[in-house]
């Protein structure tokens, strides 16, 4: 039943409940698709038995009436989430073979909602990257290719495996995490939907930490409705996460409406950047027209500190990472390099062998900006600029209800094409400000570029207003008519 793998989560959910097909049939279709797509290198671990066991339970429960929201739905889980008894590596050699004795809150929530697991999805090492090229387990190859070309493209990152899996229909949905764009940019590159909720909506407990004031879990799927369904299951207060929002989870799916009458959509002038391809600006203009058609009124707004967002992020995120990654010392878990004399040597050798280039680079930057004599000039300064960036958004939301921008400054690029770290960082120029301000933000597919590659549109909402982000996303989805799927070469 290969057509099951082209269905959305909503279609699978409704079809399963109506008795059109069984959960086992869904799980078997996806397990088979996963096994047949290994050349994408999207999965680091396949867990077909898990998907089947959960499906069997769902089939058994179907007769009894009260089914949890994701009964019958198998998902791909980014390898940054601790999954009890199943390898969790965060894309790093330093955690090779690590099997958590506990489950992350977000995946426990999904399990409670009845979802099964297809496997763990490949990612940039410790979520540091925008192309899934820094993974210790090999790059993910995008299912998308340029017209007439065999060149392997990146799916974006750091949730590259998640994006590739959903786009290639080897998962109906996946979890991702977003620290500086790591859900939204790969969603844009892969022609799928991905949302980063308000900071604190999803628990970070059991999510391998990169930058604690920025990390957020979120769903990636093929439709706005699917993202709403998944986010409702993933989100919720967790006493184990001190930054978890003690608020009820809104009924985002029930609240979906593409009627934007009376809503003002902010168009930030600082997001028109030199050097961004004309096609992307054109799609942005098209997005404005689509939202007008849905009843919204475009309003030009200014976010004056936009250009300082990326450098602010590249001080704060590496600083927090240098602190968070200090725990990988070969003592309690993960890699330990043997045959060294002292404890200090063991730390040095283990971390040298276990971390990749980009991770080392960021730890070094982070250590420097936090070190004595430089802390004020760099880290405190960056925190102050961050306050100004957040203030920009506060001011903007007095004049608009939702903000529309492009998601990424380019379509997917080739594997190995970007060698300068700084050039790679620029991929997140549109995504990072919303991360710094903790605001909900989403990417939805807007169209294809001249080479047949997806381009995304990006929506930012005020704190706690995921609903308007989803609704504006739905309005675009309905008008963009994006049905393109990558042509199967794998």
């Amino acid at each position, binding site marked *: 039943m290969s057509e099951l793998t082209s269905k959305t989560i909503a279609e699978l959910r409704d079809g399963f409940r109506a008795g059109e097909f069984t959960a086992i049939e869904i799980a078997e279709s996806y397990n088979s698709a996963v096994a047949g797509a290994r050349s994408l290198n999207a999965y680091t671990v396949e867990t077909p038995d898990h998907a089947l066991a959960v499906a069997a339970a769902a089939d058994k429960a179907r007769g009894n009436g009260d089914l949890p929201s994701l009964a019958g739905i198998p998902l791909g889980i980014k390898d940054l989430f601790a999954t009890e008894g199943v390898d969790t590596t965060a894309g790093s050699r330093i955690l090779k073979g690590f099997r958590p004795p506990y489950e992350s809150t977000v995946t426990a929530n999904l399990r409670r909602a009845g979802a099964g697991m297809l496997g763990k999805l490949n990612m940039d090492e410790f979520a540091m990257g925008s192309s899934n090229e820094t993974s210790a387990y090999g790059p993910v190859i995008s299912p998308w290719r340029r017209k007439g070309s065999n060149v392997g493209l990146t799916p974006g990152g750091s949730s590259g495996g998640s994006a590739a899996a959903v786009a290639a229909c080897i998962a109906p949905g996946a979890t991702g995490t977003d620290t500086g764009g790591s859900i939204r940019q790969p969603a844009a590159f892969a022609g799928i939907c991905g949302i980063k909720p308000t900071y604190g909506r999803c628990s970070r407990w059991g999510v391998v930490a990169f930058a604690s004031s920025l990390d957020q879990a979120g769903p990636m799927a093929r439709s706005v409705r699917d993202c709403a369904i998944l986010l409702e299951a993933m989100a919720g207060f967790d006493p184990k996460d001190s930054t978890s929002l003690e608020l009820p989870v809104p009924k985002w799916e029930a609240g979906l409406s593409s009627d934007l009458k009376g809503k003002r959509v902010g168009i930030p002038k600082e997001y028109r950047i030199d050097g961004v391809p004309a096609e992307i600006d054109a799609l942005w203009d098209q997005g404005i027209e689509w939202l007008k058609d849905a009843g919204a009124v475009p309003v030009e707004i200014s976010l004056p500190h936009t250009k300082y967002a990326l450098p602010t992020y*590249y001080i704060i995120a590496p600083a927090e990472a240098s602190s968070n990654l200090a725990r990988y010392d070969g003592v309690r*878990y993960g890699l330990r390099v043997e045959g*060294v004399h002292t*404890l200090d040597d063991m730390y040095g050798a283990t971390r040298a062998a276990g971390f990749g280039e980009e991770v080392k680079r960021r730890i070094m930057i982070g250590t420097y900006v936090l070190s004595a004599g430089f802390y004020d000039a760099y880290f405190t300064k*960056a925190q102050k600029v*961050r306050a100004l960036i957040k203030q920009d958004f506060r001011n903007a939301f007095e004049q608009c209800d939702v903000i529309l921008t492009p998601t990424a400054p380019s379509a997917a690029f080739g594997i190995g094409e970007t060698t300068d770290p700084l050039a790679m960082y620029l991929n997140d120029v549109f995504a990072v400000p919303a991360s710094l301000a903790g605001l909900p933000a989403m990417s939805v597919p807007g169209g294809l570029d001249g080479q047949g590659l997806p381009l995304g549109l990006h929506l930012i909402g005020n704190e706690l207003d995921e609903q308007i982000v989803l609704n504006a996303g739905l309005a675009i989805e309905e008008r963009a008519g994006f049905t393109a799927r990558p042509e199967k070469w794998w």
Partner: protein
Amino acid sequence: MTVSPEQVRHIAKLARIAMTDDELERLVPELNNILGWVEQLGEVDTDGVEPLATVIDQKLRLRDDVVTDGNIRDKILANAPEAQHGFFAVPKVIE
């Protein structure tokens, strides 16, 4: 502000990442490139601005000081590279 090879060596020591001289040499221009780029924050007037510590306005929750967890020693040691007598074992600290 640029970093010297000596400073990079010092940072690597703080970060407890062993590095060869070649690696350190390669890192100097890479770090200087990135640090030079983030330096533009110096253009921003931040007088009187409070550093942003909490992203979403929240009060840090407190709870009663009671033990609600524990007694899972074996789970905690399960991934240890080396465990002995219920402890994590490491190379000698004191010579």
